[in-house]
């Protein structure tokens, strides 16, 4: 007698005895959770986000400082002695004032910057700005790229021609040149848009600049993906059945484009963190009194020789965050786009 296992039976024509395939979100989470790289990088990113969210708690209860106020005359207690945060040279000709170095305790854990401010507290606050700008700019890029890419790819004709040429024109500018040019125009002025008033220190300005400059990099592939889907069998079939255009767009095109956008998200966020840091380092990104990892890096440049931790700390934070985002993004792409994973 031959025994046949039921799980090897071919599906019945009625579909009985066969479980429904997993939905895309379930497949996504299963794929991520099965990858140690994704789990570890995800945990790392969550820890960073929690740390920067706790910045006020750290500043008020651990460092006992306002990281946005100059502390040029501040003093701290070390071994029972009051020590000035800005230490004047007493040797030789007595030239130079050096901020206090890392104390590795609550106050001034990573030392002070040229304004006598607590670097650790500023790192946490700066991280909030950097991550907020990067994430918000990513959202802005993805939304704009989706609108432009879908409109160009799906509509075709004149609309496609105009939008594609616009994208090409933007693409022609080196991204940092474009970002710096936009920054110089936008930063330093109070921008009034009806009831909304944006001061030069508003984070919305760097978010808008960074969000805009990467739109062509995402809109192009989205357009290509839409054009491919538009001519796929299931869309042609839907058309043949008389399904309306907007319904095809909502039910068939957009869900398929979404995976492309999701794959872009972590990579773009990583790129945006670097762009924000570069612009802030060049004084055309985040403006005082706000801080970001880029502005702290700029502060640290003047202390590279005597207090390297001021520059190293934000540098390491940027490197680690970008690395984790890229690792996570890699796995995300493998899960959502198995073809590209096989191709590698």
């Amino acid at each position: 007698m031959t025994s046949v296992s039921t799980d090897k039976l071919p599906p019945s024509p009625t579909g009985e005895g066969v479980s429904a395939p997993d939905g895309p979100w379930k497949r996504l989470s299963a794929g991520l959770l099965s990858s140690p790289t994704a789990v570890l990088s995800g945990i790392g990113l969550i820890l960073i986000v929690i740390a920067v969210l706790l910045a006020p708690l750290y500043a008020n209860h651990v460092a006992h400082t306002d990281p946005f106020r100059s502390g040029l005359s501040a003093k701290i207690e070390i071994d029972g002695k009051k020590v000035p945060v800005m230490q004047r040279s007493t040797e030789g000709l007595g030239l130079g004032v050096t901020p206090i170095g890392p104390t590795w305790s609550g106050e001034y854990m990573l030392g002070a910057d040229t304004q006598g401010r607590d670097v650790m507290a500023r790192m946490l606050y700066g991280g909030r700005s950097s991550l907020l700008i990067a994430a918000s700019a990513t959202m802005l890029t993805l939304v704009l790229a989706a609108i432009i890419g879908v409109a160009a790819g799906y509509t075709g004709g004149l609309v496609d021609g105009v939008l594609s040429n616009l994208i090409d024109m933007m693409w022609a500018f080196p991204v940092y040149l474009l970002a710096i040019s936009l920054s110089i125009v936008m930063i330093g002025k109070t921008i009034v848009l009806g009831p909304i008033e944006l001061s030069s220190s508003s984070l919305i300005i760097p978010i808008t600049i960074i969000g805009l400059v990467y739109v062509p990099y995402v809109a192009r592939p989205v357009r290509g993906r839409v054009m491919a889907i538009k001519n796929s069998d299931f869309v042609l079939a839907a058309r043949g059945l008389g399904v309306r255009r907007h319904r095809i767009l909502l039910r068939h095109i957009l869900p398929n484009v979404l995976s492309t956008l999701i794959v872009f998200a972590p990579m773009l966020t990583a790129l945006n963190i670097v762009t924000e840091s570069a612009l802030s380092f060049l004084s055309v990104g985040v403006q005082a009194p706000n801080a970001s990892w880029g502005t702290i890096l700029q502060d640290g440049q003047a202390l590279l020789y005597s207090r390297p931790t001021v520059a190293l700390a934000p540098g390491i934070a940027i490197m680690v965050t970008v690395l984790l985002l890229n690792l996570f993004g890699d796995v995300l792409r493998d899960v959502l786009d198995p073809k590209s994973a096989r191709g590698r």
Partner: protein
Amino acid sequence: MDLRVTSRRGRRGRALARLAITAAMIPAVAPALAQAQEAHRGGTMQLMAVASGGTLDPQINYTAQFWQLYSATYDGLVAFKKADGPESNTVVPDLAADMPTVSADGKTYTFTLRKGVKFSNGDDVTPEDVVASLQRIFKVSSPTSGSFYNGIVGADDCLSSPADCTLEGGVIADADANTVTINLVEPDPEFLFKLSVPHASILPKGTAAKDMGNTPIPGTGAYMFTSYDANNSLTMERNPHFVEWSADAQPEGYADKIEYKFGGTEESAVNAVMNGQADWSFDPLPADRLAELSTNATDQLHVHAQSAWWYAPMNVNIPPFNDVRVRQALNYAVDRNALVSVFGGPALAQPVCQILPPDFPGHEDSCIYTQDPGDTWSAPDMDKARALVAESGTKGEKVNVVTEDNAASRGVGTYLQSVLTDLGYDATVQTVSGDIQFTYIQNTNNNVQISVTQWYMDYPAASNFLNVLFGCGSFHPGSDSSINIAGFCDEEIDARMKSAMTLGATDPEAANAEWAKIDYAVMEKAPAVPLFTPRRLDLVSERVGNFEYSSLFNWLIAKSWVQ
């Protein structure tokens, strides 16, 4: 070790003592001295800067970087003495054989030219060259044409129509007598100072009436420019036609050649000087190297007081600084000692709370805005500052501090933003590229409320600070060239300034006493926050000898040797 951090007053005393000793020893040591000086002749001086100073045209360039070079390449009718310390503020005859004869009404200056002086192209210097050079100041729209030389008869026409400038009746050459006569509309006690700056350099009469840019113009100095690439380097070599006529006005240089390289960073320049690959760097030394250099390179460092101030002009015509109480409040609140830290500590900056720098003509110690008002600043008075802000009812208003994009200016701006926040304002800092910040903050169309800037003297006269920076005549709304950045125009004070300038022609001491009172009167209205007086710090290589420092030109390069 040489004590190089010196006040002007301290130097004056020591200089006199040195002079007396030297005079007594001259007969004995003169030949040996000449022999030693001859031994130092030769070699190539290597200079460095992060960037060049722009155009090479001495009648247009207005940078300390290139004025330093012009002191050895060009001459005026008169010149600031090329000497160490306060003596460098003295005006001496240069291309003129003697100081001019001045008419009784103080309006006519007659100069007799030296004979035998040649330009580096071999041409003789003639009275026609002097006339053409003074006309050229207007033809090329020199930055000081309207402020320094507008008192010459005919200058008004030249200012309105530069291309056709003749200075008819203002500058008259007499080739036979070898004289030049300059007629002024009004007596000007500072006229000789104005003729001593590089904008009044005497150039060959055929020099084109346009900005010569990178093309060297022949001069009469000990050196001449032989090549210039603004992005790369500049070379100066001995002027083959130069014969020293006055060591005070134009001394012969020691080095045969001076090479100036542009590019790199302040950090790399320090390393080059310390390694002996360069002799000096123009730019300020990086703040985080100071403590190390302070102990390791004491013999190579030179610190000198400067006739300058760092200040924060407040726009008196727009809120919140159109209320004098707000301006006074900020003056009370700023901790000058804290700002000194930003600039490298007390050895490199001195807290101030008035406009005229210490030891400057007209300066009298006084400090209104301090905890215990008196002669000097002691500590901020935050209680008084907060009370004034509360009285003004401006708390919560937005204030933007505009700074230059360099560490020191940004540091000062960030500190001011912090103080303004403490006073209850919604304060921000805006950093603007150094190339445009100075003009940006001058233009009223940009609505700059408060900024951070500096002013270095052009010549040693109180008016060069008070009248230039706070006179009604220096305020030009809507222009990039409105050096009265605060937009301060008090007619009563302005009239007193004009009287003080007139008084200076007959009684300089009384005039200086009046300038001290004007300084106080301006500070009562508080159009600016005086921050500190900077000191100049120079690092030279081990081989550089005979370092001498002039108030106007800084290090006198030609007077130092490299071998």
